[in-house]
């Protein structure tokens, strides 16, 4: 059976490429999702750590008033970060759904292309192919919108993490004024800082994902 020969209905049907593009996108989305899962798990850890830090600051009393305030802020940061990740997860799920449909339809498009090669002058087939082309273009547009929304959500999360970094560094400074508790407070604030750096690295990876045109 001759493939692609005599195809007349529409030239926007390089769906073999669309199919492999969609497959790559799906792979990239899966990687992004794995990174998001890592951040969510770390954000949950910050929440617990911040709670412990609040108790520690209370025990330290007046010497750790500033540290207590920052621990509260880190708890709020952890909550905001989880909400931010929930937005990302929702967008990821929507993207997976769209890309999966494109993958499925690309498979069918390939069969229709083979049919068109056998019946190059079939008007009904041309109508079906045009309709599928329009549907495909709409889906590609939806993917493009989701890609933009995802990128914006990742940027929002990155800004949030900048704030988290400032809080963690301030907590380190406050820990130094913790008198008898300075060592424990310093240890806790050091862990905060380490974790925020871990999240920052994850988000940097996301921002450079090839899904957004980057190289990662």
């Amino acid at each position, binding site marked *: *059976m001759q493939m692609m020969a005599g195809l007349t209905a529409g030239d926007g049907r390089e769906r073999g490429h669309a199919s492999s593009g969609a497959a790559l996108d799906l792979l990239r989305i899966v990687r992004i999702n794995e990174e998001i899962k890592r951040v969510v798990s770390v954000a949950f850890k910050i929440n617990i750590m911040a709670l412990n830090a609040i108790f520690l600051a209370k025990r330290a009393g007046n010497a750790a008033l500033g540290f207590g305030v920052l621990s509260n802020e880190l708890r709020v940061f952890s909550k905001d970060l989880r909400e931010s990740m929930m937005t990302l997860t929702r967008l990821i799920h929507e993207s997976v759904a769209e890309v999966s449909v494109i993958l499925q339809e690309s*498979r*069918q498009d390939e*069969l*229709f292309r*083979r*049919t068109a*090669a*056998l*019946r190059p002058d*079939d008007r*009904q*087939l041309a109508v*079906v192919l045009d*309709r*599928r082309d329009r549907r495909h273009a709409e889906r590609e547009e939806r993917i493009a919108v989701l890609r933009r929304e995802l990128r914006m959500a990742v940027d929002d999360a990155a800004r949030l993490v900048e704030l988290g970094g400032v809080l963690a560094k301030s907590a380190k400074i406050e820990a130094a004024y913790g008198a008898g508790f300075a060592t424990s407070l310093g240890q806790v604030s050091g862990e905060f800082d380490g974790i925020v750096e871990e999240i920052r690295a994850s988000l940097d990876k996301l921002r450079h994902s090839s899904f957004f045109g980057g190289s990662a």
Partner: protein
Amino acid sequence: MKTTQTIFEDGSHKWTAIVRDPARPDYLIDTNEYLIQHAGQGLLLDPGGSEIFPAVFSALSSEFDPSKLVGIFASHQDPDIISSLALWLEFNPGMKCYVSWLWGSFIPHFGGTAETFVALPDEGETIPLAGLPLQAVPAHYLHSSGNLHLYDRQAKILFSGDVGAALLPADKQNLFVEDFAAHIRHAEAFHRRWMGSNEAKRRWCERVSQMDIDMMCPQHGAIYRGADVQRFINWFDELNVGITRA
């Protein structure tokens, strides 16, 4: 591309066999599709797998306007029977798919919506095609647990799904069975392994023996006609099925 062959014609009432694709890759089982036309409408029987859709569509289109297909009859749920459903629906989204109730929620994985499917009861049902009554005949466990054949009383043709199927060698590709004894050797192992129940087989043989059948059209292999129909029923009745060598 597959070829079409008219096997019955009486005015606007016509049966077309869509068979034998020389370009079919060896790893795909060969299948027969059948188109029943009546008064300008068409019903496609076991339209085949999605991989062979281009070949079946092209052959059918040379014979019939695909937008005039009002329905698809699926003898059972296998992918070589009905995985092309979504592709056919592109030409007529209002098309109905007649299938055993047992597979009503499985086949939608191949395509279609709730409105697409007409669930046929175990005892079968009459399917009208532009006034032509076609009878869905129970053939459960032969081989699928929800399996139906289709009988056209006026044409005296029974579409028998996998019953009567034969895996023919490349040099024996005739549309009709010409030498029953030689042909049935290619059907025996298939029936022993794929047909799951001697009890179901006995009931089917009793049922179809009482029908007036000129042609029995399986989904694989060659068509039985004339005395070979009864020969097949007798042979099948004697065959011990539902067994493996292992």
